[in-house]
């Protein structure tokens, strides 16, 4: 078996007395789209935040392409090929869409201690920005201030920003959150295209989307992994069904 792109070993993170991440282990193979699902409060965002380095785990380890990144600060993880989108849209609201993406490209174009040349006139940064915007279908909205974009467009911009850092692994924290039906469908289609180019860890509540997209699914409940496998295996899993008792239809709808 090849070295997994991402390997998480017995990760633990506590908040006071609550164990938000309880000895979580999982592996993501290169090219895989790995979904993480679980009821509210299962610790999905906490897990993602530890993967990106916004939160430090109390125990366990994270390896990216064989390299231990457990203690590596978040800005350097980005340089190693890890990109994230935020559950609650996190963009530079007073910048244009193109500026947001160009900054992401700039972050991976050497240091930014350039004090004199106009950053908006650096051709390769602008090209990278427009390429990423085109990729997510925002090519025509490049010069619009982010605060003026619709929620759906902002979600797409989140993706463009992540793509502009040319990641090996994309961590998407509920990219469908707050989207309408047509917007969700567009996002699913976009992710279907992107998964051919980059490995993805997807945290998502939209079960239709998860079962349509995922190669493998890990189910978190109260910070623990209760099941991990292909979508078919997860559907059959009794423990998952029990955990989702209230939402049972959500898991079994596709059977």
């Amino acid at each position, binding site marked *: 078996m090849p070295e997994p792109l991402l390997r998480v070993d017995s990760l633990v993170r506590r908040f006071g007395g609550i164990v938000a991440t309880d000895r979580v282990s999982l592996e993501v193979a290169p090219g895989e789209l790995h979904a993480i699902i679980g009821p509210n409060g299962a610790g999905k965002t906490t897990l993602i935040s530890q993967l990106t380095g916004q939160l430090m785990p109390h125990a366990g380890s994270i390896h990216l392409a064989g390299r231990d990144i457990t203690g590596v600060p978040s800005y350097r993880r980005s340089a190693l090929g890890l990109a994230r989108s935020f559950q609650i849209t996190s963009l530079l609201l007073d910048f244009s869409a193109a500026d947001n993406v160009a900054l992401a490209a*700039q972050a991976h174009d050497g240091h930014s201690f350039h004090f004199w040349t106009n950053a908006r006139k650096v051709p390769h940064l602008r090209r990278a920005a427009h390429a990423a915007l085109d990729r997510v279908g925002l090519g025509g909205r490049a010069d619009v201030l982010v605060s003026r974009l619709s929620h759906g467009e902002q979600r797409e911009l989140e993706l463009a920003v992540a793509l502009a*850092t040319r990641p090996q692994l994309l961590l998407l924290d509920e990219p469908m959150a707050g989207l309408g039906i047509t917007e969700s469908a567009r996002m699913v289609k976009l992710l279907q295209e992107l998964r051919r180019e980059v490995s993805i860890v997807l945290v998502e509540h939209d079960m239709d989307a998860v079962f349509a997209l995922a190669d493998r699914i890990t189910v978190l409940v109260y910070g623990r992994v209760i099941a991990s496998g292909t979508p078919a295996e997860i559907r059959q899993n009794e423990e998952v069904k029990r955990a989702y008792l209230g939402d049972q239809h959500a898991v079994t709808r596709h059977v």
Partner: protein
Amino acid sequence: MKVRLDARKAAAALVVVGLLLLPLYTSLSGNVFALTLFTRIVIFALAAASLNLIMGYGGMMSFGHAAYLGIGGYSVGILAAEGIGSGFIQWPVALLASALFALVIGALSLRTRGVYFIMITLAFAQMAYYVASGLARYGGDDGLTIYKRSDFGGLINLSNRVQFYYVCLACLLGGLYLIWRIVNSRFGMVVQGLRSNEARMQAIGFPATRYRLVCFVISGTLCGLAGALLANNTDFVSPAAMYWTRSGDLMVMVILGGMGSLFGPMIGAIAFLLVEELLSQVTEYWALIMGPLLLLIVLFGRGGIDGLLGRVRRA
């Protein structure tokens, strides 16, 4: 191409032309006082513009910016008192001392955010104030008289009012040009991005603190230059230059003129010092009028005077 005339640019251009032509007016009218007043205004405009770089563009609310006025001033004053009168030595020392001070207090205070950052920068400036008060050899509380202005050989004579005014104006315009280049550069984009959303900037791969720190140092250095000019202007430097109310004045100038706008602090400095001058001729309680004025600007004119101008539409 049609040239778009907007009120902000027009106002900024008008002010700059006015400042350039001011000595002409004063020599024709013999109104020397106006030149003295505007020399002071131009120097404070430079200090306010430097503060705007970190406060307006960088989102770092420094409440200790007057410290650099004092450090720049004392560099000139102390060297002059020790018999080193050359501006070619005094001014670089003033810049270097300010940069070093900014580097040290920046490295410590940039670990904090928000109110804590305001408080810690204030604390450092007050420390500088008390250190200066304790410099018995250099006048202590009473301050230090500078008997001879910085000497630039035969190049320029700072004792000549008009020449000194133009030196100050050149420093201001040069400073504004530098800030303009910086804020549009890659570095400036990063600093403004950090003001807007630090978590996002970290996530796309920017180490926040080192960019902020460099910005902090540039700003402090520029303000140190203003300090060296101010000391030459008054032929005197005292701890009062660093007192916290002075830092507050600088903040008011920036907010009054418009945070994060290039010419805003210049306009703010002119407005603040002119109003102060005019009102103080009428009453010694001028601050009683200044206060409500500022309140109105903050409440109703978001973006300061520059922001108000931005909303003026051409019919």
